[in-house]
Structures are given as C-alpha cells and as structure tokens.
C-alpha cells in the first residue's frame, strides 16, 4: 500500500476541539496517565502479535511476515484471544479493582491491628 504524503503519524494525534475536562488534582497526572494507558495498550498489542506468531508456527512450522500480517483469529483462537486480553486488562487494573473492594470493607489501619495483637 502506498502511504500518503501527509505526516499521518503526527496528524493522528490531533486534539479534538473543546476544553478537556481535568480528572486529577495535579494536571501533570493527566499526561502521565495518558502515557501509562497507551503503554498498557501497546503491551497488549505486542502480546497479540506474539500470539499470532505462536499459533502460526504451531500450525505451519515456518512462517513469513506476510503470514503474520494476514492472520485472522477464528473460532477457538478468537475466543481464547478475547480471554487473553480481558485477563490482561484485569491484571494490570488490579489497583483500581481492589479500590472497589476497599470501598465496601471497613478495615482499620494496619497500625491498629498491630497494636491490638500485642495486647491480645
């Protein structure tokens, strides 16, 4: 495929018009979080590529880059991959997921437990 003369890599990043809401107390965290989430996404992309290579190698023994690029997961492979990504997201999102559980747990600070155990 021929690529355009546009600097599409840079243009892909264009900001949508309209003031962006701020989510965190410190504005720099907005950018740091955006980098972090993109990185989380890119690791997932790499895992899919690896999964593709593994499946193709298993099926064919030797493969070309064109084989990898053309690969379409179907049937069990599609379902397994769906599980793989879901599991991956749940794993990297451990912190916020545990925060949900923490909201419904009324646990005292650990110091309190430490003090309590000394005397019991």
């Amino acid at each position, binding site marked *: *495929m*021929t*690529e*355009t*003369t*546009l600097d*599409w*890599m840079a*243009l*892909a*990043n*264009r*900001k*949508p*018009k*309209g003031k*962006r*809401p701020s*989510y*965190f107390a410190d504005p720099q965290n*907005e950018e740091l*979080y*955006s980098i972090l*989430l*993109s990185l989380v*996404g890119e690791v*997932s*992309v790499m895992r*899919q*590529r690896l999964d*593709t290579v593994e499946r193709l190698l298993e099926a064919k023994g030797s493969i070309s880059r064109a084989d*990898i*690029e053309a*690969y*379409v*997961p179907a*049937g*069990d492979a*599609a*379902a*397994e*991959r*769906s*599980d793989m*990504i*879901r*599991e991956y*997201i*749940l794993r990297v*999102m451990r912190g*916020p*997921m545990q*925060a*949900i559980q923490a*909201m*419904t747990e009324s646990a005292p600070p650990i110091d309190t437990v430490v003090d309590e155990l000394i005397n019991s």
Partner: protein
Amino acid sequence: MSKSSGVHVPPYRAVTKHDMFPSATLDEAARFDFITHMNKFLASSLGAGNKIAYEARVLPAFRKEHGRDPKDRFEIRHAMNRDPFHQLWSASKRNTMEMRQQNGRAIALRQLDELDARANALNAGKATLQLDPTVEVPRYQSAVDIHCMPGCYHGEERPGDVSAGANYDSGLFATTAGALGGLSDGGGQAVVQWLRANYPNWKPRRVLDIGCTIGHNVVPLALAYPEAEFIAIDTAAASLRYGHARAQALGAMNITFIQHNGEDLSRWGDGCFDWVQTTMFLHELSGKALPQIIREGFRVLAPHGLMLHVEQPQYTLDMPLYEQFIRDWDAFNNNEPFWSAMHGMDLKQQMVSAGFAPEELFVAAVKAVADRTIFPEAATDETEDHGRAAAWHAYGAWKGGEPK
C-alpha cells in the same frame, strides 16, 4: 487454555469490509481489540465501582454536607467528580476514547491517497451525490469536536478528502464491541425488523433521512425497500463523500446524498415524503434546532406518513437520578454538549408542538439482533455501555394515523 470467561468480544478482524473500508494492519487491529476490551472493562468490572463509591461514600458525604439527597443528576455529577475512584474511571474512559480516535486517524490518514482515489472513482459524475459548499456547519456542530473526533463530521485534512468518514467508519465496530453488527448498522437493521413485523404491507415511496453521516443506518433501510427513493441529508460534506461511496460499494443505489441543513427543508414541498427518519441524531442538535427540524419534518411528511427518531432512551421521571448521571457521562466527558438536555426533553411534547396529535405518537423498543457471523454461539455481554448500547427507543408518529 483455561475455562473461558464467557464474555467474548469479537476480534476487530471480524468487521465486515467493503470497498471503502480502510484496511488495518495487524497491530492497528490489535489496538482496536484492546480498546474494545477496555470499553467493556470500563462499563462492567470497573464501572461497577462507580455505584459503590456513590453509595458507600459520595452520597453519605453529600447528605452530611447538605442535609438532603441530591436533587438532580448534575448535583450527583459534581459530587462524584470529587471522588478519586470516579476520577480514575472517568480518566480511563476519556483516554480510551482518545486512543480510539488516534488509532482510527492513523489508519485513515496513512492510506488517505488510496481512500480518496477509491471514493473519487465511486463518486465521480454521480447524480446521487450532491454537495453544496454554501451549506454552513451549524454552531452546535462546530462548538466542540463531537465525541472527541478531531475535526468532527465535517473536518478535512486536505480539501475534498474522506478522512472524517473513514476514521468514523473504522472505529465504530471497536467502540461498540461489534454489537451493531459487522457493518455497524444494527440500528437500521432493527428498524427494518420492527417495520417488517408490525407493518409488513407498508410500502414507502420516498424517504428522508436527516443527519445521515456516512449512512450506517440508512443503507439497511434502502436495501430493505429497494423500490423506494431515499434522500439522505447532512451538513458535513466530508462525511457525505465517504458515505455515498460506501453506499455505492454496498449496492444501495437508491440513496441520494445531499449536503443540506435539516432546519430548512423548503426545497421540498409539503407532504412529499412517506417517511422521515433520524437515527442517533437529535442528541447532537441544540434547543432551537431540534424543534425546528421536527417541525420541518412534519411539514414534508405525507398524510399517514411515518416519522421515526431512534435514540438512546430518554430520561424519565421514574429513572433513578444515579442512572441519569451515569448516562450523562458522554455529555461532559466525550464532547456531546446537547446530550444531557436532549435526553431530559419530553420528545412527545416536541412532536405534538410540531403538529402531531397525541394519539398518533408511539414509542417502540428496538434492539439490534446479534450478528451470528460475529457472535457464533456465545451470548453477548449484557452489561450496558451507556450511550453505546445496541438497544434504542424509537420515538415515532404516523401523521394523521397509521396507513390503512
């Protein structure tokens, strides 16, 4: 592989390609896969935390401070926006939207020469595409880039291109996790199914679709009623160019795409359409444009003609305030500035003011049928991703009563 979770999301590679569809590389498709899963995760697993945060601490703190419950969805929003869990959830959702746009734009822009060439080949000299450079982009379309899509529906990277439509088309399957079908036309398909079930003998001759964008939902209507003449209007030339080429590629030759503003339909006489349709359109207007468009739609509608507006459900008095608040997220975080006001409107009242008699009105629940080529056997995840669910309300009316 261990036992599956049962919440299967179709791979991006399952999307239906047509001659205008931008091709995605392995990594670009994988990026969309991640985004699809992230949206699911944010709607279900992590999304559940919002209600918990609300009940466990935000509401108690509000009651303590004000001595009463929140009186509307806006008070809930202000209180929730201070909650650290909700902040992280919202930031994650906003970022996922931004990542979707970045990926779609990279895909569309990198192959723009070829996409433009294909569109030109399909569009050149066709009377079914009528662009009018004097049509202005309404303020409610230009104030912000709607759903954070850089350039909105009308933006161009260079004059005359199809980048906006191509980006929009490439990503919808990912944002909706395939729930709208391979061609992301589930809304239109659902309307066809509803009409076939309820009015099997109805044969519209002329149909007007207002705010068609790239024709996702008018194409299935046109294919279902091949004898009818469809007029699809939109103010955004960039979307129409792509949409017309796409419709031609899909064999919907009976749609004429016209760049035109729905607020003034004076080029069409009274009563000249049997059906006036909008799909996911009214929520992107303004307080004055919405009634004006419905009034104009009523005027051009023939006796016993059908007006149908397909939207996400309106907020009603019996809808809990918390649910209204969470359904409102897109308004404030995904550049949908009329979403909140529109969903709070009494659409029936709007239709009555436009000229319909109250007894002519109806609301039908229309739901996308899961596309079995995408979801072979598995039940689809039922958690609702608010604002993107594949189930709608059709707010409709037959002018002067149903056809005999």
